[in-house]
């Protein structure tokens, strides 16, 4: 066999092996196909897709099987493949709800589902942004574990009788801590971030990276671009500062301590 023919054969085998390896790793070409396959494997089939929304880095797919509905966030990887990270919203039996509240139940399901697994997306995107501004931060990612370490995850009881409580989740890497507080339904309350920057330029990069991720990529941590721009303008050596809009309030005590509060 001529050398060119051999190369062609080898390359074909390589393509086949890579495809098979990705298949073994549970990567698929379509979020729909993957969602239905996951349903089959959690004994939720035959199911059909009743809602789908595709974001730049992931898709949210709601499937229905009889009266039952469930939702799965599916992540996009390598620009064209889809991967299910194993987290899905436990199926809800719609027949248990009155007819008039079913739309609301579906809406809440989609919102909660949007939140599931959002913090790794948040931190991953943050890292990407910060890398482009040459700041030296990294991210937490449950799947690829992990430069950021999850150092705490616990319920915090607020108020009398423990009626309201939040989930407290903290990630740490070296000189930076990012802490999320959400309701048990996953609704965002606030993000605390503290760090020890090497320079004020690094602080600016960090805040700008954080906010641009917040307004640009995430669905349930929304920040208006105008607010992000205002914060960015305020971080040139001006501390303390407070910026707020209709949705959020950002307070920076100094270069090292900021909190972002959802209203």
């Amino acid at each position, binding site marked *: 066999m001529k050398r060119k023919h051999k190369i062609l054969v*080898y390359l074909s085998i390589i393509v086949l092996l890579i495809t098979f390896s990705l*298949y*073994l790793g549970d990567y698929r070409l379509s979020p729909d196909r993957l969602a239905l396959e996951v349903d089959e494997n959690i004994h939720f089939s035959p199911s059909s897709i009743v809602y789908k929304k595709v974001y730049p880095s992931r898709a949210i797919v709601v499937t229905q099987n009889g009266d039952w509905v469930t939702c799965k966030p599916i992540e996009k990887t390598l620009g064209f493949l889809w991967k299910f990270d194993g987290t899905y919203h436990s199926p809800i039996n719609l027949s248990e709800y009155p007819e008039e509240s079913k739309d609301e139940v579906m809406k809440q399901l989609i919102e909660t589902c949007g939140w599931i697994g959002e913090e790794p997306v948040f931190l991953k995107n943050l890292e990407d942004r910060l890398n482009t501004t040459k700041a030296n931060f990294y991210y937490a990612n449950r799947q690829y574990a992990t430069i950021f370490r999850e150092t705490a995850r616990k319920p915090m009881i607020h108020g009398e009788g423990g009626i309201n409580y939040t989930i407290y989740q903290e990630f740490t890497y070296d000189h930076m801590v990012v802490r999320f507080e959400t309701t048990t339904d996953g609704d965002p309350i606030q993000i605390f971030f503290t760090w020890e920057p090497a320079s004020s330029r690094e602080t600016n990069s960090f805040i700008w990276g954080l906010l641009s991720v917040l307004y640009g990529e995430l669905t349930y941590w929304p920040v208006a671009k105008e607010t992000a721009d205002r914060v960015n303008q305020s971080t040139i050596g001006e501390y303390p500062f407070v910026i707020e809009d209709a949705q959020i309030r950002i307070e920076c005590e100094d270069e090292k301590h900021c909190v972002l509060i959802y209203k």
Partner: protein
Amino acid sequence: MSSNKEENFLQEVVRQINFPFDRKSIYKELSGHIEEAKQEYLDQHLDVDEASRCALDDMGDPEEIGKSLNKVHRPIWGWLWILSKYTMILLLVSVGFQSMTMLYKNVEASRKLEPYTMPVENLFVDYTDELEAEDFLFDEMLGKSVELGNHTIIFERITLHKNGTMLLIYQEVIPFRPFGLQSTKHPINLFLTISSNQHDLSPVQGGMNGIDGYSIIILKDVPSECRKFILEYNVYNEAFELVIDVGGSS
């Protein structure tokens, strides 16, 4: 044996070849040709030196030969060939290992286990006193199976301690699927309802253990007179109902 002249000739030829992995084979091939030509001259009764000189003269200019051979053995194709070959081998090993691991895992998951005959005393983790045989009101092997989707649930054993703790030991046999997303076990501990003599005996939430591939459902405060149990499961349109009659037929 090659003379110095032959060696110099061959070295001059291979020096022109840019792709280093081809030099050895070209050297060997040309060396063979020279030896053949030399042998022909030796057969014509020339001495060794003369035969070698004539053979090399017949071959031509070594630099020219090297250059024309280099055109055929282009380094770009050579490197691509080497690279693709070793990448393929590496991938074959890696994917082979990956698929064998997965295959083994899936064979294990789909394997039907022998009935659970081990002593159950150590499963009562919250019972501090030493357990005696008479502490159990009953301990019976069941071997009753139900089909749930394409899975088979085999209820292996039921045992009730006099402190009211009941264990229901079962295994779930998953159909063998060599590759792809794997089927998970049914959430039986979450959704199984058990009743007996009008008593609702729902499993303890979070009170499910697994041991050696078996699953164990734990029930608390089971009345000591209960001997007939009705198990019902109906989740996401998959359902089964099973009656367990301890000491009798079901």
